């Protein structure tokens, strides 16, 4: 129920920032829409800890900026590789272990890996093994340090 | 042309070049996945282009369109990958005695 | 009863008979009684009309507009009266004959036969009473279509083929040529009402008149002018009463009647004469007369010979019209009646021979006159009428046509009539000779012992033979009517 309520509030906020119109009529519509969306989302089983990860809000504040910096670094790296030409690439496929306990955590981890250029998660196994394709073999070491894995676990509140 | 316009013009030009290059990849293939990737990248560039054009024409309030592009691009790509992988968009349908009619 | 009511009755009576005929289908006697009774009533109605006409009344009646400005209209005039008399008079006779023939021949679908026959008579009445060309055309087409099931009565492939020819020529010519001519007339004259002296006078001139006239004459396929005569011999597959209907009662008569109507009331003989629009018809009709006679001469099948004879005889009427002389027109009108009576006798006789002896070929008929004296006697009278010898009706009509031709110096026509008379004699007299004086072939053991045909048939053919003679003896009524066609002074 708390998730539903928070979803309604979130939707209403979204409405307000997109709309920019303060008339009562539109606000009422926004409220009704938010409720409708919440209802449909529940019907679609979308309002659970995966679909509406309310609990990650605060800890995320620390994770996302870190990730952004990582992304910038990786981008520069990849840009250099591309400019150097096809000969410079040394693709590699390898696996890393995701130590998060549930799918949400693994998803965040896998997506973070993909989001940083140079590495793409190609598969997630049931036991949390991620198959990674990397543009440069060097990316492997970076991941195997487990820095990101740890941070995601922190985000999930597991460590 | 004042310099802000010029700035957006430069961005638009870059995006245009990028779009052409993406289109070339889409035409060249060689695998299906190359095409999907290219069309997806093309879509991303298009949505950026819409945003830039909004600023270029000094009517930037139509960014809703760009959002729709992003959305459609995403759904399209998901549908495509699902399709090439499973050759189906949803079948089997499960035991639904009701049918559509 | 008022003339209008009588005209409506004349149209409706046969139609009204259809219902009872169909309902009485299971009881042949009742069915035929209905037909005969209606026939009697119809004769009474037509005679009633005749008396009105004699009183100088010209009954006319508008049935309602079909197209804007163009009504379905009935109007009685002498020529129509003549045709109505012929058709109405011969209907019960034909029914009488058919009672004997159809039962004797064990024909199937007799109810259908009687029903459509009645419809055909109604259509013939319509043709006779039409007050304008549109109405006439309507009934003309109805007549074509309702006789189709009669022609194909047998349902054999041969009958089907004949039906196709029948319909193809009659519908084809009427739609392609006649309808075109009618619409052109409407377009040019702005009316289609029959009027003495013609409605086209002053509206058209020059070769267009000739073209239009040709469209009419060829378009009226029922007049069987060559080359549109093929349907008539083809239709010989039908039962004999149907042949009677075609050749005598309604169909071909409707054709030549229409030609006369068109000549007199649409064009007017003056217009035709001025533009020399009918000269070609003298040649065409003359050719048809001679050619059909020659073909008839070559036919061994009796009905086929009679059919070609009809083609030839019809062209007399056309010739009479084409000469454009009042006398020959009168002759043409009389010939409608004369030929009707004569030809129906001949067909009745041929059918009677077929029913009684199952013979269809002339060469088989040697000596038959002795077995069927009444039948062959009547046949002889009919044949004389065809040749144009007294004391038969054929003589009267031929005489008038010939006089007209002489009067207007149409020597071609004179020559044709003379030659054709010889040819007619050449193809009829041998039949009579062998029938009465020939010896039956020996191998004819299969059918020997037959006598006359069933009584109703014999009765019918004797009646018509008598009529042929009566028309010669007492032609006044007919002459009056035919004379009235031209304004009252023959």
């Amino acid at each position, binding site marked *: 129920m708390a998730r539903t309520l928070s979803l309604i509030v979130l939707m209403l906020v979204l409405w307000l*920032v*997109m709309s*920019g119109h303060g008339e009562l009529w539109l606000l009422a519509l926004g409220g009704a829409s938010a409720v409708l969306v919440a209802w449909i989302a529940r019907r679609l089983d979308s309002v659970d800890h995966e679909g509406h990860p309310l609990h990650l809000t605060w800890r995320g504040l620390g994770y996302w900026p870190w990730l952004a910096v990582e*992304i910038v670094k990786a*981008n520069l790296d*990849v*840009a250099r590789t*591309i*400019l150097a030409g*096809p000969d410079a*690439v040394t*693709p*590699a*496929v390898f696996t890393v272990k995701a130590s998060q306990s549930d799918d949400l955590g693994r998803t965040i981890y896998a*997506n*973070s890996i*993909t*989001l940083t*250029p140079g590495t*793409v*998660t*190609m*598969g997630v196994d049931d036991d949390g093994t991620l*198959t990674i*394709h990397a*543009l440069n073999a060097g990316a492997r070491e970076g991941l195997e340090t487990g820095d990101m894995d740890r941070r995601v676990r922190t985000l999930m509140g597991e460590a | 042309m004042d310099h*802000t316009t010029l*700035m957006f013009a*430069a*961005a638009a*030009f*870059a*995006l245009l070049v*990028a779009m052409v*290059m*993406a289109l070339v*990849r889409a035409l060249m293939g060689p*695998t299906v*996945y*190359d095409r*999907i*990737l290219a069309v*997806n*990248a093309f879509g*991303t*560039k298009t*949505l*950026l282009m819409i*945003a830039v054009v909004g600023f270029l024409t000094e009517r*930037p*309030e139509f*960014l809703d369109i760009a959002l729709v592009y*992003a*959305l459609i691009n*995403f759904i399209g*790509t*998901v549908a495509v*990958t*699902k399709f090439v*992988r499973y050759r189906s968009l949803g079948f089997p349908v499960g035991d639904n005695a009701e049918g559509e009619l | 009863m008022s003339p209008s009511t009588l005209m409506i009755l004349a149209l409706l009576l046969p139609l009204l008979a259809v219902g009872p005929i169909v309902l009485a289908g299971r009881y042949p006697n009742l069915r035929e009684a209905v037909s005969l009774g209606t026939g009697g009533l119809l004769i009474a109605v037509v005679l009633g009309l005749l008396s009105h006409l004699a009183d100088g009344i010209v009954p006319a009646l508008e049935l309602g507009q079909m197209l804007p400005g163009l009504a379905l209209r009935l109007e009685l005039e002498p020529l129509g009266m003549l045709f109505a008399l012929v058709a109405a008079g011969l209907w019960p006779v034909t029914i009488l004959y058919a009672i004997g023939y159809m039962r004797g021949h064990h024909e199937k679908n007799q109810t259908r036969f009687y029903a459509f026959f009645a419809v055909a008579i109604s259509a013939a009445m319509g043709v006779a009473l039409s007050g304008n060309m549109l109405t006439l055309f309507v009934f003309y087409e109805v007549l074509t279509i309702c006789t189709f099931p009669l022609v194909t009565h047998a349902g054999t492939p041969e009958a089907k083929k004949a039906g196709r020819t029948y319909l193809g020529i009659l519908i084809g010519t009427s739609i392609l040529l006649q309808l075109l001519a009618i619409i052109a007339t409407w377009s040019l004259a702005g009316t289609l009402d029959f009027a003495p002296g013609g409605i086209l006078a002053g509206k058209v001139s020059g070769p267009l008149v000739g073209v239009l006239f040709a469209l009419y004459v060829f378009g009226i396929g029922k007049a069987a002018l060559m080359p549109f005569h093929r349907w008539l011999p083809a239709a010989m597959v039908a039962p004999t009463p149907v042949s009677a209907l075609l050749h005598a009662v309604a169909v071909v008569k409707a054709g030549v009647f229409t030609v006369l109507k068109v000549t007199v009331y649409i064009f007017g003989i003056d217009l035709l004469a001025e533009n020399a629009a009918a000269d070609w018809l003298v040649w065409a009709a003359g050719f048809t007369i001679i050619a059909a006679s020659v073909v008839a001469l070559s036919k061994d099948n009796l009905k086929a010979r009679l059919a070609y004879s009809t083609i030839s005889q019809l062209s007399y009427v056309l010739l009479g019209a084409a000469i454009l002389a009042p006398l020959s027109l009168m002759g043409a009108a009389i010939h409608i009646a004369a030929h009707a009576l004569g030809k129906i006798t001949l067909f009745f006789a041929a059918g009677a021979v077929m029913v009684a002896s199952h013979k269809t070929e002339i060469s088989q008929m040697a000596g038959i006159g002795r077995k069927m004296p009444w039948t062959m006697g009547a046949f002889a009278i009919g044949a004389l009428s065809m040749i144009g010898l007294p004391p038969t009706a054929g003589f009267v009509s031929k005489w008038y046509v010939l006089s007209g031709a002489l009067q207007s110096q149409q020597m071609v026509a004179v020559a044709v009539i003379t030659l054709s008379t010889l040819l007619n004699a050449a193809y009829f007299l041998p039949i009579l000779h062998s029938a009465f004086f020939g010896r039956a072939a020996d191998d004819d053991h299969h059918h020997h012992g037959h006598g006359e045909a069933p009584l109703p048939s014999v009765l019918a053919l004797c009646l018509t033979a008598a009529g042929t003679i009566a028309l010669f003896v007492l032609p006044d009524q007919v002459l009056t009517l035919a004379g009235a066609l031209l304004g009252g002074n023959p």
Partner: protein
Amino acid sequence: MSLILDTLSWALILGGSGFVLIGTLGLLRLPDVFTRLHGAGMTDTMGAGLLVLGMLLQSPDWLVAVKLVLIVVFLAFTSPMTSHALARAAILDGIKPWLRDSGKGGAQ
């Protein structure tokens, strides 16, 4: 203030354009679909991000700004999903990644 903003947006937009171009170049030049994915991903993240940031600085009112942010967030969110889905589909379809040492796989 305006000058600083403008200079900053210039820098951001040029940078974004640069990344977009480089990423697309990668899409063209890299040897197989998996490596190209990295190039495309670059456009989605850095390219789009910088460009939007540049525009953000120029946006006339906060409505536009909000939508720009929404765009970039949406892209950041969906881009890895599509990349992953694509890569996964390709690998399951039997396409072997091009590897330098084996010299096999890649574009067929």
